[in-house]
């Protein structure tokens, strides 16, 4: 291993130095000479017809440069949706236009109606307050089931109703599943909600548009997880700017968690307005704006049934879900409740029959899209909850019931009834590890101790699997994706042997600048410090798809491996020439090319220099230079899995839940940097526990966003969480990518919510409580205790 860290080393992060000294460069830290500021006037009602927008007073306010409304965007496209779902009957989903500025109607609180560009931020805000908007308020559609009733107010007048699509999967199994449930020895049924969440990366979104008239070139600085995707969607579908005239830069980005994947109107606006006013145009979201304009997450209402035989073997799963799309289709919204959700309903288990029905519904709320886990938390939560309920109904230990139904280690590759083929895994092993690290045997004594203090103690287990490393392009293309999901890397070797890796992956906290060099350094046998990572700028990175779906190491890392392999293959030829040997006889070890079985060798740096100073070089056979690009398209998803245990104490007098311990035993395959992987698990667990206990995005019946700030939306704080116990020693390497790696970014957020809820229900089971919907606030827990009495 290189002295400063190769594969498997917990190398400390090089990016930390700039973040710890205030030298990070986030988008809001960028200021361009001559920039103007934009403030969006946003709808304060959920649904209404715009009769008139009077900007005349506002235009005369100090500092105002120009005010824009939808009239200025005639001929400009709407913000596109990147995934088309086909319904049970073979018809495409209903897909309304999502305008840059509201056209004719407003459809959710926070929708931008007009935009003021002014000399200062304050002047833009002041002028926006002087715009007079005449809106005729219409009834708001908030509840999904009400939205689907006959005669419900339509969110979009030009659609047939509020149903976006009615999806069935696997449709051919529908009757077989119904029959299995009818005939089963035992059926456990559970109705639950997966609460609506706001992703809340700590850095609010920012967009800066810049236009160079002399070159007819546009630049957009934006807080994005995937700048190339933004360039493609905005350039091709909204503004009609070819890629060679449009550069998108996502510099240091302060967290994403999914909500910075999507292309937003504000990005298109700033790009458009910069040309229209011939000034750079900057928008910085306030947190209040973020709550009403960042795409939200989850918001499913589900009924799940699990059929079991007399021995507790799972026979069939049937689930009916209503999935909230909000008022418009955000970039990947339709994929979340369908392909990222339905395909996970087999879980870790040999359940032979699965049927998933999803009705996606338009409502007068902010669009809902992927949030950490995206569909997989929704699947895992309902499955792991209904299994727990079944275990209790049947009097079987919940760990034992899971074990009886696990796919066994000798069954891989394992084809599920819901279209996936798991390449590898070992769920009994992760469960064994959990039993050990969570000291399950000691639980009874801990419970007795808690009860002696008047507290109820519960133990909750969950075992998740997820499909990530998103994703094989040909597969997702069949499923409705309007993009490929490969990743790219260019490896450029400098004349004296240092390397620059230009990756299409994007780091917004994941530590790519540290992890990726560890891989390259290991392959060549040089110090990781010789490798730099460039990302986040479409002008100097190859077309890439960005970071989400736990794909950076599995897909982006694999692209880097492939490009580095090409570099090594060429360097070996150069070395063979220098050593007057044949290519096959050259070995690369510790940065030295050696002729096998001899002491003849040439150093990595000398080979690199020869490539760029090709005086003694096989020019007739080989081009000079040492730079290679690879595009890697995965053969399959990767399938991390893990066993989680949560112990809680509940105060039966107040309903307050305290997490006493949280243990996670994950299988991520091979691990490049264990420190970073553990950090990703911690963060996912915190968000999963936040969903289970604290976080809830609430609309009232009129569509007002009740939880619109950190005073109303409970973010997990340091004293809400325990220290975590994590273990990643169970490793079944992925069989189809060159590093044998799986993704780790979403795991915690997927596995934690059912573990927490199972623990609380376990604590209160003897009082008759069978389910409580998230978040398990003291009020909800207390009410459940009272209702069960």
């Amino acid at each position, binding site marked *: 291993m290189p002295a400063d860290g190769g594969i498997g080393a917990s190398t400390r992060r090089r990016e930390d130095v700039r973040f710890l000294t205030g030298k990070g460069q986030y988008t809001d830290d960028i200021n361009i000479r001559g920039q103007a500021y934009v403030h969006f006037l946003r709808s304060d009602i959920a649904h209404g017809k715009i009769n008139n927008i009077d900007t005349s007073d506002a235009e005369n306010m100090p500092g105002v440069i120009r005010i824009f409304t939808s009239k200025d965007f005639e001929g400009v496209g709407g913000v596109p949706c990147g995934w088309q779902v086909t319904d049970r009957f073979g018809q495409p989903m209903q897909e309304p236009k999502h305008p840059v500025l509201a056209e004719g109607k407003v459809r959710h609180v926070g929708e931008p109606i007009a935009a003021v560009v002014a000399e200062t931020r304050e002047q833009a805000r002041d002028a926006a307050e002087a715009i007079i908007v005449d809106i005729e308020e219409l009834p708001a559609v908030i509840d999904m089931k009400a939205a689907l009733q006959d005669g419900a107010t339509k969110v979009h007048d030009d659609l047939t109703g509020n149903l976006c699509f009615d999806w069935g999967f696997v449709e051919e199994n529908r009757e077989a599943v119904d029959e299995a449930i009818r005939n089963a020895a035992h059926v456990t049924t559970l109705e639950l909600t997966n609460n609506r969440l706001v992703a809340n990366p700590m850095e609010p979104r920012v967009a800066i548009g810049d236009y160079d008239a002399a070159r007819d070139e546009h630049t957009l600085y934006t807080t994005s997880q995937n700048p190339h995707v933004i360039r493609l969607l905005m350039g091709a579908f909204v503004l009609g700017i070819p890629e060679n005239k449009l550069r998108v830069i996502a510099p240091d980005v302060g967290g994403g968690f999914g909500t910075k994947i999507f292309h937003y109107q504000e990005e298109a606006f700033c790009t458009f307005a910069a040309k229209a006013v011939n000034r750079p145009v900057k928008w910085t979201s306030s947190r209040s704006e973020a709550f009403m304009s960042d795409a939200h997450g989850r918001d499913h209402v589900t009924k799940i049934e699990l059929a079991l035989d007399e021995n507790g073997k799972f026979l069939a799963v049937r689930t009916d879900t209503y999935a909230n799309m909000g008022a418009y289709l955000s970039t990947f919204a339709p994929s979340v409740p369908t392909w990222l959700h339905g395909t996970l309903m087999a879980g870790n288990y040999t359940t032979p029959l699965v049927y998933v029905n999803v009705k996606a519904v338009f409502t007068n709320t902010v669009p809902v899209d992927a949030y950490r886990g995206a569909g997989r938390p929704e699947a895992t939560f309902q499955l792991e909850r209904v299994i727990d309920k079944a275990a209790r109904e049947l009097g079987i230990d919940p760990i034992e019931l899971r074990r009886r139904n696990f796919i066994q280690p000798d069954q891989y590759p394992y084809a599920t009834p819901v279209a996936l083929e798991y390449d590898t895994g070992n769920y009994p092993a992760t469960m064994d590890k959990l039993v050990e690290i969570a000291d399950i045997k000691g639980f009874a004594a801990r419970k007795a101790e808690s009860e002696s203090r008047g507290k109820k103690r519960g133990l909750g287990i969950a075992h998740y699997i997820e499909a990530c490393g998103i994703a094989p392009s040909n597969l997702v293309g069949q499923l409705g994706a309007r993009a490929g999901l490969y990743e790219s890397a260019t490896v450029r070797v400098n004349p004296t042997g240092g390397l620059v890796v230009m990756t299409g992956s994007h780091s917004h906290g994941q530590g790519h600048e540290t992890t990726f060099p560890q891989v390259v350094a290991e392959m060549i046998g040089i110090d990781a410090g010789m490798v730099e990572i460039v990302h986040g700028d479409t002008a100097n990175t190859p077309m890439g798809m960005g970071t989400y779906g736990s794909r950076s190491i599995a897909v982006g890392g694999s692209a880097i491996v492939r490009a580095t392999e090409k570099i090594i293959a060429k360097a070996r030829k150069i070395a063979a020439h220098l050593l007057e040997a044949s290519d096959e006889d050259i070995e690369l070890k510790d940065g030295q090319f050696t002729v096998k079985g001899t002491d003849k060798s040439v150093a990595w740096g000398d080979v690199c220099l020869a490539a760029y100073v090709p005086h003694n070089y096989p020019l007739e056979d080989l081009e000079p230079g040492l730079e290679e690009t690879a595009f890697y398209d995965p053969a399959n998803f990767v399938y991390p899995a893990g066993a989680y245990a949560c112990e809680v104490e509940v105060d039966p007098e107040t309903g307050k839940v305290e997490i006493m311990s949280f243990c996670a035993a994950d299988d991520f395959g091979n691990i490049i940097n264990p420190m970073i992987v553990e950090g990703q698990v911690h963060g996912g667990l915190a968000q999963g526990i936040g969903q289970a206990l604290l976080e809830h995005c609430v609309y009232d019946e009129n569509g007002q966003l009740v939880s619109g700030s950190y*005073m109303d939306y409970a973010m997990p704080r340091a004293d809400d969480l325990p220290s975590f116990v994590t273990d990643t020693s169970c490793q079944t390497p992925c069989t189809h990518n060159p590093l044998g790696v799986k993704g780790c970014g979403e795991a915690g957020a997927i596995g934690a919510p059912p573990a927490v809820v199972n623990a609380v229900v376990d604590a209160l089971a003897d009082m008759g409580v069978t389910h409580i919907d998230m978040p398990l606030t003291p009020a909800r827990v207390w009410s459940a205790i009272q209702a069960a009495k």
Partner: protein
Amino acid sequence: MISVTMTVNGKPVSGAVEGRTLLVDFLRETAGLTGTHVGCDTSQCGACTIHVNGRAVKSCTMLAAEADGAEIATIEGMANPDGSLGVIQAAFKEHHGLQCGFCTPGMVMSAASLLAENRNPSEAEIREYLEGNICRCTGYHNIVKAIQAAAAQLG
């Protein structure tokens, strides 16, 4: 406009501000110190935490005009004179106490303030002290470890 002068990380900074200009905006825009971040608009998140006359303050809760004459310390002033990381900064790096880095300046400033008040805080005391600083990435686990390590080193 109001004329203000304050000492920021040991250097005098002056500027003309509106009455409504927040201290954080003055630091970011007039002083050009963009290490102090704005993560919310309700004084909840703590990303803008700095030291004013030696005490941790959320710089979005103070007007620039109120800080006239004050001694201000920001994240840019936390490194050692030779530019190397200070004890708390180094502990955050060593213990992976940051991911995206956006909340980090505020976390470091709060941690410094905690350790100035309490040289040997317990885990519970650290977690309680950090209530005013939200981190979305780390789950706080490694932030707590980093502060414990820094406390041990500072003795």
